[in-house]
């Protein structure tokens, strides 16, 4: 597969200042500040092919957003080379960004006080989209995302899920070749997450559009990505298929229980279950190895022994994933 994104030895460092905590340190920082060099992205290389959906995983502060901003041409790398669709993103920014779309989960492209439809018209002018094309594209996107009824309401009155769907329309109107998604499902409810993931899958399939997705939600990656890159403290610690990542994870899930009765003295640890957190005699978090027992069998087993009032089943937190990768692979997988 011909790579559309080729990243070689990408590094981004920047300077910040340590200000300390408390009144004394704050006062001192007015006169003397300690400079700190942050290695946000540290010599990472990878290539991504046309039509791939690649998830970039990492805990908060790992450097994944910095990496995606450099790929979008919004930040200049400190060193290293990036080639996307034959462009150097930061140097050829103006020509390059017309070929890509981006959704930043925490930064809106919509104009706050006016309806999304007017923001869409702004993008129509920016990208020079012809009228018939704009109309048909808008109809297609609003139908897929089921937001035709909200696009004429002021943005500020929309729910987070509705706004995020409108952000996707903003990013997709000009039919980009590559879509960059930075935490696109952050803060969304389950229904909105499912809709957005379905939309990304369809766009990828219909347009053979390449997607780069940063997230710390393993579910996003499981649902969408063909391939996963894990970044931690600016370093690439894993770069392989989702199947390979699952081998490292060992098919584990976390189950939070709120029991209706005290489970003091009950031993939950066994060959396939481990106690992760015991908040009280009523609230316990267990890690279940689903390679050995299915979640339904596990829940049936527990419900036979104890009554519970609430449960939630979650993927492993990304910090745990990174730890598993380090433990199993001894660090970097090149």
């Amino acid at each position, binding site marked *: 597969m011909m790579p559309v994104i080729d990243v070689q030895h990408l590094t981004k460092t920047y300077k910040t200042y340590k200000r300390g905590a408390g009144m004394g340190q704050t006062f001192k920082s007015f006169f003397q500040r300690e400079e700190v060099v942050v290695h946000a992205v540290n010599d990472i290389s990878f290539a991504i092919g046309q039509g791939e959906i690649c998830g970039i995983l990492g805990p908060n502060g790992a450097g994944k*957003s*910095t990496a995606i901003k450099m790929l979008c041409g919004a930040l200049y790398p400190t060193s290293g080379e990036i080639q996307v669709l034959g462009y150097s993103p930061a140097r050829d920014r103006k020509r390059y960004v017309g070929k890509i779309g981006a959704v930043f989960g925490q930064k809106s492209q919509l104009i706050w006080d006016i309806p999304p439809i007017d923001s869409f018209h702004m993008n129509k002018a920016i990208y020079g989209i012809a009228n018939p094309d704009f109309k048909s594209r808008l109809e297609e996107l609003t139908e897929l995302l089921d937001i035709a009824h909200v696009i004429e309401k002021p943005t500020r009155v929309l729910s987070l899920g509705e706004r995020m769907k409108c952000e996707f329309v903003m990013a997709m109107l000009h039919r980009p070749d590559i879509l960059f998604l930075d935490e696109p499902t952050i803060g969304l409810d389950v229904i909105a997450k499912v809709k957005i993931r379905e939309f990304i899958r369809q766009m990828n399939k219909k347009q053979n559009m390449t997607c780069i997705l940063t997230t710390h939600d393993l579910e996003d990656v499981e649902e969408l990505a063909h391939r996963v890159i894990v970044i931690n403290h600016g370093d690439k610690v894993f770069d392989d298929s989702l199947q390979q990542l699952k081998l490292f994870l060992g098919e584990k899930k976390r189950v939070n229980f709120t029991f209706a009765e005290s489970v003091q003295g009950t031993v939950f640890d066994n060959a396939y279950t481990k106690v992760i957190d015991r908040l009280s005699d009523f609230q316990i978090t267990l890690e279940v190895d689903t390679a050995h027992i299915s979640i339904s069998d596990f829940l049936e087993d527990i419900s036979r022994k104890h009554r519970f009032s609430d449960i939630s089943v979650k993927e492993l937190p990304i910090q745990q994933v990174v730890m598993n990768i380090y433990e199993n692979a001894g660090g970097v997988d090149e």
Partner: protein
Amino acid sequence: MKRYLDVYKQGMYSALQSAAAYRMNFIVSSLITLAGNILFPLVTLLIYRAGTSFPGWGLYEVLLIQSVFTMSSGLSSLIFGGVLWTTMSHVREGSFEVILLKPLNPLFFIIATTFSIDSVGLFLGGVSLFIFAAMHVGAIPVLFWLQFAGMFIAGTAVLAGLSLMMAAISFKWVGNSRISELADSVLHIGKYPLPIFPKAVQAAATMIIPVGMVGFLPASALLGRVHASDYAAILPCFLFLAAGIWIYRHMIRLYEGVGG
């Protein structure tokens, strides 16, 4: 070019819509700006009523200078007024990449999307005061009007350059809301007849930071009081704007965002 015009048109439309969304804020803000700028020439009126004056300059001549200054400020504020605050807020919040994602000159995009409709009050206040003062200074020949128009455009270029330089500083001096006061303190010089200032200040206000072109020189052109050497101050005005654009574009490279 058509694409840029369409974007600007859409930006103006969005600004109007936003103003319409908060009608009371728009009305109150326009009135406060208008009142603040009309009160300022009243001080001049009080000075002259008290029997004192700016030597060599009559009341309506000084009011003419001040009205031209207000018109120029209003026009510049309409077009460039939002650049400083928008840049500052994007840099502080780390959302400037939203601007950089557009296949346009980022400076143009910010200007197009920050059309400050609130400044209409300031501009119209300046126009009203200008008409009032011009009616009291006698007949103005067509040639003087042409000279005035050229110098007025040059003065607006100075204000635009100053706005861009202040906005550029916000890339480095993150979150400093007093940046605009730096510009205001320099601009005050343009509100008064330049000859009342020491020679060094006069030279700086025509050739280095040409704030003399904002109010004083265009008004002097209308009054037929410009000298041949004053025309030399037009070039620095456009150089000043070019410097503002260059510095702003250079400072964009320093943008580092904030943690994601």
